[in-house]
């Protein structure tokens, strides 16, 4: 039993952290968000480092590592709030690898892993990240997941409240595309874990920024952070962040090593991360006071990303309903 990362995993996370701190400081996030563009150079760099394919099998040109390693990158991505098609493409790879057939995998995984194309995963009733530039779209509905090439799908870009990322509505006529034959829920659960990992990073950064601010900012002659209400708010933010983190790491590990526990792990992770990040990012605004409500402070980017991520592929409510079913099944198995 070891809940800590391995040395390699620590190293991957640290390197990602340092890279993004340098390449994507908040000034650049702001510049990109305000112009609604991406830093294409960053994406090129991430591709060169093999990020999109980190969890894709080596036989398909990927890094052959697991969901745990991918999650360390995504957490750092959320922490930096870097704009790029990385999350969407990584999710597409995860789902395709888990539920695609051999032909689908062979056709697409190498191209996703190499960054030659980008992909995404979504549903018709949601805002799908980075769909407009994607060559490959995996569209989930009650019947399963369809693999669609760009020309087979209708992609309508929309400005979401989160300007740090591109979103679109995606639809396709009935019968278009080819279905993924594998276990759809298990595949989507991997994607949910990956989204949760990004949200953990968002939550952690919102907390970090808040702690730094309240240590510094003075009111009534003392640092704001010495007020018990602010202290307790920050403590609550830590509890949300660490709970989501523990659940997400567990779920990522389950995806790699104990698939039978993935369904529960993914529901735990997505529920904890979705609800937690909405709380922490709203709290970050509140703890910043009036400044936190201004465009020129950076906390709002995190609040906005949090809202989109929390809803993506199912929020806390849907996940709690699943968890209740799992809990009932657990006792019924005993009774």
């Amino acid at each position, binding site marked *: 039993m070891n809940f800590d990362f391995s040395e390699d995993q620590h190293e991957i996370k640290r390197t990602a952290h340092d890279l993004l701190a340098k390449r994507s400081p908040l000034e650049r996030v702001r510049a990109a968000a305000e112009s609604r563009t991406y830093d294409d150079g960053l994406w090129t760099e991430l591709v060169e480092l093999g990020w999109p394919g980190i969890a894709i099998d080596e036989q398909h040109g990927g890094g052959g590592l697991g969901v745990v390693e991918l999650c360390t990158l995504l957490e750092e991505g959320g922490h930096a709030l870097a704009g790029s098609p990385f999350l969407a493409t990584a999710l597409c790879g995860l789902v395709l690898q888990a539920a695609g057939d051999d032909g689908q995998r062979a056709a697409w995984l190498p191209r996703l892993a190499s960054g030659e194309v980008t992909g995404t995963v979504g549903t018709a009733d949601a805002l799908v990240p980075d769909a407009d530039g994607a060559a490959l779209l995996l569209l989930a509905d009650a019947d399963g997941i369809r693999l669609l090439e760009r020309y087979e799908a209708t992609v309508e870009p929309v400005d979401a409240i989160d300007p740090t990322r591109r979103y679109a509505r995606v639809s396709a006529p009935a019968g278009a595309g080819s279905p993924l034959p594998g276990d759809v829920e298990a595949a989507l659960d991997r994607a949910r874990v990956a989204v949760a990992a990004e949200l953990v990073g968002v939550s952690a950064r919102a907390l970090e920024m808040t702690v730094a601010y309240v240590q510094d900012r003075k009111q009534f002659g003392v640092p704001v952070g010495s007020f018990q*209400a602010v202290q307790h708010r920050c403590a609550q933010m830590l509890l949300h962040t660490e709970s989501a983190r523990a659940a997400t790491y567990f779920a990522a590990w389950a995806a790699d090593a104990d698939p039978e526990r993935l369904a529960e792990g993914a529901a735990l992770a997505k529920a904890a991360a979705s609800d937690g990040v909405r709380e922490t990012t709203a709290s970050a605004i509140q703890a910043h006071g*009036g400044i936190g409500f201004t465009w020129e402070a950076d906390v709002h980017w995190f609040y906005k990303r949090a809202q989109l991520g929390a*809803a993506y592929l199912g929020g806390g409510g849907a996940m709690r309903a699943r968890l209740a079913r799992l809990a009932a099944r657990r006792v019924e198995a005993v009774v």
Partner: protein
Amino acid sequence: MDLTFSEAELAFRDELRSWLADHHPGEMPHGDEDEQYAFRRDWQRTLYDGGWAAVHWPSRYGGRDATLTQSAIYFEELGRARAPLAANVLGLLLAGPTIMAWGTEEQQDRYLTPILSAEEIWCQGFSEPEAGSDLASLKTKAVRDGDEWVVTGQKVWTSGAQHSKWCMLVARTDQDVPKHKGLSYFLMDMEQAEIQVRPLVQITGEAEFNELFIEEARIPHENLLGGEGNGWKVALTTLMNERAGLGFFLQVRMRNVLDDLVTAAVQNGRIDDPVVADRLGDLHLRTENLRLLAYRGLSTIERYGQPGPEGSLTKWLWSETNQLLAQTAADVVGADALVAGTPWAYELLRSRGNSIEGGTTEILKNIVAERVLRLPRAA
């Protein structure tokens, strides 16, 4: 206890309703802020022409001598009709009553009518970047120079400053006495080059508020309100009037948004999900509680001459509920609520400011604890 409106109250309401039916300006234009402002200014002129700009003002100043309840009815009816706010809301609610309470006859003659007619718009220069919730630590200073005062400093959260002719300014006129003792209250002309107005863009992308950079602006001595060194007391009058009746407007606005959400939930079928119904039931409860607390607060003022505990509770309950409403809407409405520019998305962003603007929830709770419950002050 009688929660029906009296004959006089009903007559007042019916007169207003019928006037509103004839004069409602229609929906506010989307998008451009200047256009919206012009729309609200026109609307205030319409109100003024109809004698409906400030019902709570004494009739000798152009009001209707409205009782507290009538004033509440006024804002409720405007809200229910989904009419916009008058452009000069700070003049009508804050500057006017403060000038009536503290101004000389000359000042009252000079300022009140243009407030009412929206001819001269007012803004409020209280908050400063360093002071935040701590008004006593204001740094903007005014130095006497003959018949004038010379003002230098920085103000923040001045809503509507770009449209304003006048500013209710609190500045330090005596550096040598502690805290709030050295403050004075001025009526400052905004039309001078020494005042820079910089819009303060919010997380919604709008700029409701501004920063003021004041560099040796000049104020004639006669524009001092309430006497030198009395700024704290005069400012308290302004603050006491804050949200007096506006609370009813905001509460009805919240009710409208909730009704829209319930309608959306009925239309998309989510109302049949008991979890959704539970949350909507809670929001309905909170919204009604707010209305009831607000009316109860009026009766307390009418009986005892001062607000009861309800007064300090409604703004807190309102902001908390509005945030909950916006987040619930996002869950119930789905993707539309996350698309920039939709009313739901706007609420999701704008509501975050509710627990900060006009006194953070933390400060409001402190006030409840210390002034209402008489707990010992925090060390």
